[in-house]
C-alpha cells in the first residue's frame, strides 16, 4: 500500500529516456538523444516524451491524440518492443530496459517522417486499402436492417477491435524481407469482411488474397503480430482462418503452393504418422501425390535443390533409403491416427473453438470458499 500512499503524496521519480532522433530533411544521420524527466512511476511513456519536449527540446516529433489507448496514434518502440506510448507505464518500461534507460524508437517497416513519427500512409494505409475494407453487400439489399445470426457477428468482433496503430506492421518479420507483403493489419481487416455473412464476395476476396504472391501464403507464422497487438486482434490467427476458408471451403488452388503445401503436409501425416521431408518439397510444388515430383514445377524446384540434396547425402544427413522410403509409426497406431482423420474430416462442418469468444473455464471454486452460495 505504500506505493499508493507515495502516489497521493505526489511521489515523482527520475526516469532517463534515450530517444532515437531523425529528421530526413536535415540531411543529417539519425542519432540518440538522452533526457531525464520527473514523473510518478505509474504515468505513461507518452507523458514522459511530452515532458521532455516541453522542458528540454521543442523539436521532438511525436504523434498522439486520445492518450487512452483508443486512437492508435502513438505507436512506437519501447526497449525494442512495439507499444502504444500512452499505454506503457514508466515503471514497467524501466524494468524492461537493458541499462535502466528507457529506449524509445519509431516503429519499424515504415519510413520515418520525423523522430517518432512514421509514414503510415506510405505503408499501413496503402495495404489496408488493398483488401477492399468495406462491405460488398449481397443483393438485393434489404429495405430495413440485415438480420444475421449473433454468433457470426461475434466471430468478427476480434478483428473489429483493431485501432490501426500499426504495431503489428512495425514488427512483421515477413514484411522485413518482403515489403510488399500485404501484412497482418490489412489481412486481419480482410477477415473482418470475409467472416461477415452479409458480404457477397467471400470467394473473390479469398481468391485474390491466395493468388497474390504477397498475400495470405507469405505469412511466416512468427507470432510477432500476435505479441505486438495492444488489442488482442491476433492477426496471424486471422490469416490462418483466411487460409482455412480459402482451402477448406472454396478449394482454391493458388499458384504460390499454399494449398499444395497444406495438402502435402496433412496427407503425409495421414499416410505415415510422421513427416517424410523428402516428399514434402516435391509434393508442395507438384501436387499431393507420389507423382507430384514429376510435375514441371516440381522438377524445376528439385533441380535448384540439387546442391542441398548433394550436401545432405554427402554428410549422411539424408540417406537414399530415407529419401525413397518414409519412416512410419507402428501400423496399429497409424490405423488409429487415420481413424481420427476420417472421423473429423467427414464432419459436415469444421469444429473450431475460439477462446477469444468462449473464454476459459473458470477455475472451480474451493468447496469451503462459498458456503453461502454467493455466486453472482
Amino acid at each position, binding site marked *: 500500500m505504500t506505493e499508493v500512499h507515495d502516489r497521493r503524496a505526489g511521489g515523482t521519480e527520475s526516469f532517463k529516456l534515450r530517444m532515437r532522433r531523425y529528421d530526413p530533411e536535415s540531411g543529417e544521420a539519425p542519432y540518440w538523444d538522452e533526457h531525464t524527466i520527473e514523473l510518478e512511476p505509474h504515468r505513461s511513456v507518452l507523458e514522459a516524451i511530452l515532458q521532455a519536449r516541453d522542458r528540454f527540446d521543442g523539436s521532438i516529433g511525436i504523434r498522439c491524440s486520445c492518450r487512452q489507448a483508443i486512437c492508435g496514434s502513438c505507436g512506437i518502440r519501447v526497449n525494442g518492443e512495439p507499444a502504444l506510448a500512452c499505454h506503457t507505464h514508466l515503471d514497467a518500461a524501466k524494468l524492461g530496459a537493458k541499462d535502466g534507460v528507457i529506449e524509445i524508437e519509431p516503429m519499424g517497416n515504415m519510413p520515418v517522417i520525423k523522430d517518432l513519427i512514421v509514414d503510415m500512409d506510405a505503408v499501413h494505409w496503402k495495404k489496408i486499402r488493398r483488401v477492399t475494407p468495406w462491405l460488398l453487400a449481397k443483393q438485393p439489399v434489404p429495405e430495413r436492417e440485415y438480420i444475421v445470426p449473433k454468433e457470426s457477428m461475434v466471430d468478427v468482433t476480434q478483428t473489429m477491435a483493431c485501432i490501426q496503430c500499426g504495431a503489428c506492421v512495425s514488427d512483421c518479420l515477413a514484411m522485413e524481407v518482403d515489403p510488399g507483403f500485404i501484412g497482418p493489419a490489412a489481412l486481419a481487416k480482410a477477415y473482418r469482411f470475409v467472416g461477415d455473412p452479409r458480404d457477397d464476395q467471400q470467394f473473390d476476396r479469398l481468391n485474390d488474397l491466395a493468388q497474390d504472391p504477397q498475400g495470405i501464403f507469405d505469412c511466416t507464422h*512468427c*507470432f510477432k503480430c500476435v505479441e505486438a497487438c495492444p488489442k488482442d486482434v491476433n492477426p496471424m490467427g486471422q490469416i490462418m482462418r483466411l487460409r482455412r476458408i480459402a482451402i477448406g471451403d472454396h478449394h482454391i488452388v493458388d499458384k504460390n503452393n499454399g494449398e499444395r503445401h497444406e495438402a502435402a503436409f496433412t496427407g503425409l501425416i495421414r499416410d505415415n504418422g510422421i513427416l517424410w521431408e523428402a516428399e514434402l518439397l516435391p509434393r508442395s510444388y507438384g501436387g499431393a501425390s507420389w507423382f507430384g515430383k514429376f510435375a514441371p514445377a516440381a522438377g524445376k524446384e528439385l533441380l535448384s535443390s540439387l546442391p542441398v540434396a548433394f550436401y545432405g547425402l554427402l554428410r549422411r544427413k539424408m540417406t537414399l533409403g530415407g529419401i525413397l522410403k518414409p519412416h512410419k509409426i507402428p501400423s496399429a497406431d497409424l490405423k488409429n491416427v487415420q481413424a481420427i482423420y476420417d472421423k473429423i474430416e467427414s464432419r459436415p462442418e469444421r469444429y473450431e473453438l475460439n477462446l477469444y469468444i468462449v473464454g476459459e473455464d473458470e477455475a472451480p471454486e474451493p468447496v469451503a470458499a462459498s458456503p453461502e452460495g454467493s455466486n453472482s
Partner: protein
Amino acid sequence: MKVAYWPGCVSRGFTPELHGSMAKVAPLLDIELVELDRACCTGAGVIAEHNQELADTLNARTFALAQQVDGAAMMMNICSTCQGAQSECQERLDANAEYREHVNSTLAGEGLSYKHDPTQPLTNKNFLWLLVEEIGLDNLRARVKRPLTNLKVGPFYGCYIVRPRNRLGIDEQHPRDHYLDHVIEALGGTVIEYAGMRKCCGFPIITMNKEASLKQAGRHLGDAVDADADCLVTPCPLCHLNLDLQQPIAEQVVSRELHMPVLHLPQLVGLALGLDPKDLGMGRHVVKPTSVIDWSTSVVAAAA
C-alpha cells in the same frame, strides 16, 4: 528424472544428429528418455491451419500416451515447433471442459483419454526449459568437463519457443526467452548477441516464397557473422534446416559468404560435457562446424 520423450519428425528424418546427440547427452544429465514412438506429428501449425479440431485431437492423443508413461515426471521435446504447436493445442484443450470431452470422444475408440486437472496440468517442456528449470544451471555447470572457453556462440531462438509469451509461460520468474544465453554461459561459452536471434528462420514459407524465406535465414546468419560469432545454437530442427541445410542457397540469395556452423542444443551441451564431436553427429552438418571442432581439439590438447 524420467520423461515421456517426444523427439518429433525432423530429428528422426533430415536432422538425425539431433535425435542421436540427445540420446548421448541424456544419461550424462540423469535423464531417462521413454520415447513416445506411437505418437504422430504435432502438425507444426500446418494441420491446425487445415483443421483445428484435427490438430487438437492428434495432439491430445500424444498427451494421453504421455500420461500413460509410468513414473514420468513430464513430457519433453527437442523441437521448438513441436513445443509451439503442442502448447497451442493444449491451451484450447485445458481451457474448455466441454471441448476436451468432445475431443476425448474421438480418442475413445482407441481407449485413450487426455486428462486435465487444473491444479496439476500436464507439463510439457522443451529440452532447453527442462535443462534450466529441472536440472538447474548450477548442476549443469558442475557437470561440465570441457568448458566452452573462448567459444563465441550466438543463440538462435526462432519463433515458436518465445512467442506468444503467455501461452509459453514466459514471465519474470521464467525468462525462457533468455535461457539459451544462460545455458551458453553455464557451459563456459561467450554469448554473442545479434539482431536476428529471436526472428523467424524463414522455414515456414520455404515452399511458398523461397526468396523471402532464404533472405531471412541469410540475413540472420550474416548478422551473426558480423557480430563475430563462431557458431550458432538452436533448439529447433526446422530452423536448423533453413540455417544449415539451405545455407549454400541462402548465401546466393543474400550475395555473401556465410560459413556459419549451426549446432543443435544437445550437441553444444554434449561438447561441454566432454563428448566427442563425431559422436554428436557434428560431421553430418552441411556447414562443417570446423571452428567448433578446432576449438574442441585445441582445448583437449591444451589440457593434456
